[in-house]
């Protein structure tokens, strides 16, 4: 009984201390239109975050070493960083930005998605920390059959 009370008190304090983010999440398609037409990963990161300076740690990208079907390459991004957004990029397609997750107070960074990759390349993920810094991770992979052909 005592432990449960202690735990709920602790959680309550956290909620009060952290000013809650807006309830309505951002649509990054509208907020940062240039991110979606940027051809290189650097340009897309710059369009989204205003800088390309990232710290290469704390972000794990999991993909197979060889993807047999470029139309459905499984990608998983995980991180324990206290963050605002997570973005995934690749350098194999005409444009580099794939998806931007806008995080909320309940979020756990463990996202999985399947993406199209035209050819072999590198998938990178950037985590925008609440500390104002950008963290990144990446994984290179080979794609057996290109995926933009449908």
């Amino acid at each position: 009984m005592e432990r449960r009370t202690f735990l709920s008190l602790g959680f309550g304090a956290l909620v009060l201390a952290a000013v809650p983010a807006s309830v309505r999440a951002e649509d990054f398609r509208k907020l940062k239109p240039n991110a979606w037409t940027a051809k290189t990963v650097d340009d897309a990161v710059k369009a989204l975050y205003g800088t390309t300076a990232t710290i290469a740690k704390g972000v794990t990208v999991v993909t197979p070493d060889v993807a047999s079907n470029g139309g459905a390459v499984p990608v998983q991004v995980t991180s324990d960083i206290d963050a605002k957004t997570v973005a995934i990029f690749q350098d194999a397609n005409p444009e580099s930005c794939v998806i931007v997750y806008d995080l909320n107070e309940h979020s756990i960074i463990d996202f999985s998605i399947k993406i199209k990759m035209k050819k072999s390349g590198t998938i990178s993920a950037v985590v925008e920390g609440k500390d104002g810094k950008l963290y990144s991770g990446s994984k290179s992979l080979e794609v057996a059959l290109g995926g933009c052909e449908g």
Partner: protein
Amino acid sequence: MKIKAKLKNGVVSVKAMAKHKMWTYDIAKKKTGNRNDANFITHINASVNDKVVFDASTSQFLSKNPIFKFKFKADGFKKGDKIVMTWVDLKGNTKTSKSKIK
């Protein structure tokens, strides 16, 4: 949209499959000769009890019939609570689906 949401050890894990042909500009050009026939999901979100638990803005590069997997802290959400997901695509179509956390 098929949504499976499971609550275990204080974490809700969700697997949601949207049904969408997800045509990139290149695919549209190939299929109809017109790049403007491209259409793909551009935004998708999920909420439980009116609280946003997932939000993603997306590109033309997700696979056909994309499966979104995500997790969030249960934070007071319970089994039986309704999870509502909505996607919007490039042409402005939208779809909303609901399921219960199990």
